[in-house]
Structure formats: C-alpha cells, structure tokens
C-alpha cells in the first residue's frame, strides 16, 4: 500500500525546525542552502521533506537531489549535509 508522503513530499523544511534547533544555536530553516546537484538556492524551509524513515530526508524542490538528512538515534543525531554546497545563515539583528 502506498502511504501518503511516499509518492510525494508531504512536508517541507519548516517541519525540520525542531530537530535542527536541537543541533544549531540558530534557526536553520531560515538559512539559505545551495544544492550540490543543481546549485539552486532557497530557504531550507522550502526543501521537500520525507519522514518515512528513521529520520528526515530533505530534497531540493528544483532537481529533487537529497540536500540534507537528519537521523535520530536514541542518544545522538546524525546530520548528513553532503548535498548542500553551503548554508547561508542570517544572524540576529543584522
């Protein structure tokens, strides 16, 4: 049976805010990523997110390459950023 969210992304990068906030001191969903696959750049909040897995898989809405993965284990979090060339993080008050 096909579950909702398996064929199309059910969520977007906004849904990663809580997990990322436990790792970073700033809100990363407002940061801009650059996709390693196609160099598309936009807010992390706009990534397409799949959550049917041990973690979250975030893909570029432009080329659908994986940009970012977050996997939660009971005592740690794995963050895989190989699909992003860089993150541009706005600083508070600037």
């Amino acid at each position, binding site marked *: 049976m096909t579950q909702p969210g398996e064929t199309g992304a*059910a969520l977007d990068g906004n849904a990663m805010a809580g997990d990322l906030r436990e790792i970073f001191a700033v809100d990363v969903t407002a940061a801009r990523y650059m996709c390693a696959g196609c160099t598309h750049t936009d807010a992390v909040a706009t990534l397409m997110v799949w959550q049917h897995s041990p973690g979250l898989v975030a893909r570029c809405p432009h080329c659908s390459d994986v940009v970012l993965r977050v996997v939660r284990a009971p005592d740690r979090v794995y963050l895989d950023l190989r699909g992003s060339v860089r993150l541009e993080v706005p600083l508070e008050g600037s």
Partner: protein
Amino acid sequence: MLDVPDWPGHLPGQHVDVRLTAEDGYRAQRSYSIASAWPHPEGKVELTVQRLDDGEVSPYLTDTVEAGDRIELRGPVGGWFVWRDQQPAPVLLIGGGSGVVPLMAMVRARAMAGTKQPFRLIYSVRTPEDLLYADELRRRVRDDAGLDVHYVYTRKTPDNWPAPPKRIDVAALNTYGWPPDFAPDCFVCGPTTFVETAADILVALGHDPRRIRTERFGGTS
C-alpha cells in the same frame, strides 16, 4: 489549549512539536502550528488539531487527551514562516483547510499589536461547516480595520453564494489578493498541492517569489 507556565513567547507562524511516547518506548512526533498570538492568553498556547482517522497522533490529541493531562512539547520552533509586526508591507494570507491556523495567529497578532498593515486572507475550505474560527473571523472583519477575508468553497457553498464550488484559481487570487505592485508579503499554508498551486499563481501574477513564504503539511498524522 495548553498551559505552559514557562513559555518564552512565540512569533505568529511558529509551531510546536508534540511528542508522544508509548509504554513500550515507541515515539511519535508531529508538528502543529500555534493558533494563538503571544502573549494572549497568558501562559497558554492554543493549537488547532485536525483529526485524521488513520493518524497516529491526532486521534490521541482530539479524542483521548483530557484537561489536566501532560504532554511533551518542543518549541516554539521555525523562524522562516513567521510574520513580524515590524514588517511594513501589506500582507496576503492564503490558507487551505487547517492551513489557516498559523495565518490566524498572524491575524490575531496584528490586532494585538494594533498595527495598520492591511491584511487580506483568502481561505479555502470544503464546505461552510468546515470553517475554523468562523465566528471570530466574522467579528474581526467587522472590528479589525484593514482586515478582509474571502472564502473559497471547494465542495459546497453557503446558500445564495454567487459562485459554484471551485478550487482556488487565478481569478480568486487576482480579485481578492493584493496587486503585485503593492509588494505584499504573502504567506501560503495548506496541503502540498494547494500550496504549490497558490504559489505558482502568485508568481504568474507577478509577485516576487522572495516575498512568498510557504508551509506545507502532509495530513499524514
């Protein structure tokens, strides 16, 4: 409505993660938009949860939880799909179904801050019975100067409604949204297909994509 005595406050559009842990240690986590505008009501956070029959978390929150039960929350989180009352631009809010929840927090925050940015809300629902905040929106359109609400009914309209049921389209956004020349800040929230349709229309009408912020929810929880 959750009592959170040490709540640090939030911006309209932010959400919380609700985490449930079963006796065997199985955990399920879902994000819910905050419907209330800080700091009202004091020390409380209002969530609006749509019950999904095959969901893991929403039936528990809507059917099982009773006043006095404790719930594990993480938040407020999210710093992108938020409106700050210092933003001077007019605002266009487009909500599909329960996607109206974070937009309602923005409407409430605007009233509470007493700011003057003109707001327009285009709210798409299946039927008049599905409307969230129906009474409050009616009252606010009357009392909150500069707030307009337009409804799009997709399955059934109220009696004497001038148009048959339809999905959100170019005509609705062109007629009831702001012209692109006004450079409004646009917030679109709803199911994925709704959000993509509305955002594509806004861009086609000439709105600056950088002023369009979107939030998709899955309806899988």
